[in-house]
């Protein structure tokens, strides 16, 4: 479904991503783990078109999207929940969700809203509230709900557990699994490697801009190397 082929990404002179290749197949949950600053967010931003690769290419649904504009990539069914949620704090909860459906014909928005509200009743309760007044957990729900409004085929999540209490982390991860069962392919970026590996079909470890290890979620969570580096022993 998604093929990332030997991409190299620069911030000015800083070579942030050094020849990364990986792929995500239809129906999978794939996780990209790695320490802070390894380049995980950069990889996602490059896939969604916010950053450009210097060399290498990205294919989504058999089409080359390497130089496609970000808003066109969304139209093709690739949604990205960015690090730090990035919801529109001055807009209401409902307006945020409507923005998520920006690429959809306006006729279908009502039905999508109902679906998301059914999945996140909290958002329903707060739909007229300005998003900046939501708690951290609610904001993350909103960020995920917003990305579902466009009916993505592939959903990329950048550290959805960041800054959340353990109970909320559990909740977010079970939502991710539900979405996957409902047919959405998932690319999950996490620092919380243990949780991510426990739900992932396959995993890649990113280390200073390059992929060092890959395997199934199970293999990686049992590997000594990973345990030492990312799972605290």
């Amino acid at each position: 479904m998604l093929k990332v082929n030997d991409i190299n990404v620069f911030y000015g002179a800083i070579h942030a991503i050094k020849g990364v290749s990986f792929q995500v197949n239809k129906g999978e949950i794939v996780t990209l783990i790695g320490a802070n600053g390894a380049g995980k967010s950069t990889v996602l931003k490059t896939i969604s078109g916010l950053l450009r690769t210097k060399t290498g290419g990205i294919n989504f649904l058999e089409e080359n999207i390497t130089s496609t504009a970000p808003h066109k990539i969304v139209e093709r069914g690739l949604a990205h929940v960015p690090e730090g949620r990035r919801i529109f704090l001055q807009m209401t909860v409902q307006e945020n969700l409507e923005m998520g459906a920006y690429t959809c014909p306006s006729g279908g928005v009502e039905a999508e809203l109902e679906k998301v509200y059914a999945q996140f009743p909290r958002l329903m309760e707060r739909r007229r509230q300005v998003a900046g007044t939501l708690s951290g957990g609610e904001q993350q729900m909103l960020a995920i709900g917003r990305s579902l409004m466009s009916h993505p085929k592939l959903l990329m999540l950048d550290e959805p557990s960041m800054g959340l209490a353990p109970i909320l982390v559990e909740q977010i991860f079970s939502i991710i699994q539900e979405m996957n069962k409902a047919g959405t392919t998932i690319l999950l970026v996490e620092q919380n490697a243990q949780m991510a590996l426990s739900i992932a079909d396959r995993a890649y470890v990113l280390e200073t801009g390059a992929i060092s290890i890959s395997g199934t979620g199970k293999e990686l969570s049992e590997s000594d190397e990973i345990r030492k580096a990312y799972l605290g022993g």
Partner: protein
Amino acid sequence: MTFLSFLISGLSLGSVYAIIALGYTMVYGIAKMLNFAHGDVIMVGAYVCFFATTRWDLPPTVGVLLAMVVCTVLGVLIERLAYKPLRSASSLAVIITAIGVSYFLQNAAQLLWTSNPKVFTSVVGNSLIKLFDGRLTISVIAIITITACIVIMAALTWFTGKTKMGKAMRACSEDKGAAQLMGIDVNFTISVTFAIGSALAAIAGVLLCSAYPTLMPTTGAMPGIKAFTAAVFGGIGSIPGAMIGGLLLGIIEIFGKGYISTQLSDAIVFAVLIITLLVKPAGLLGKQTTEKV
């Protein structure tokens, strides 16, 4: 009665400032830049209307519409050619470019239309309404200007609050990266904002010159700076702020002229601005926000 008459003149002048300030503030909100050429777009709008009505004998409504069309195209072109290539440049480079565009427009107007002042014919004639046995006279253009300002404000509030494009504009103003991830075409949205701001500038130009009929290539410069001041005064980026800032500025200016000193009126305006910014650095309705890239 002089008080009432000053108040109406102030509201009328303030309405012109408010309409110009709306363009400044909307563009600032979305593109995070001060479009110093905005005042000169007003001047172009006034010239277009002048030629349409005075030279080609077209009806005033057609003159206004033509001015709006020309300014819309001009505003979008300025953004595409001058500002868009600098989207990721330093804000200093952008400000210098905006000042350059401003002088470019003034010089182009001088070349095309000479610097001799033209006498603008008011689009609604010069009729006056007399009230209280003639002790209070109000010009029709003042009433039309104030009405236009209210209508524009209501229309913009509806547009940004209720329409898909208006909401997209607010989303882009807050976080362009996130807006792109929603599938919003940020470049197109910025163009639409420039188009709306410039169409409003055309209306402001016609209203301004209908009340103060001397039209020269520099006609837009001072009102442009005043409107910029009004936008900052109200809280740059805020639509109601631009409206309130514009109206207050107009009232302060006319009262300053009437009760204190004609020569000092501009100094008074800026003194009020400075004091406001010392007390409320973000302006009357401005929000202190942090930018994410």
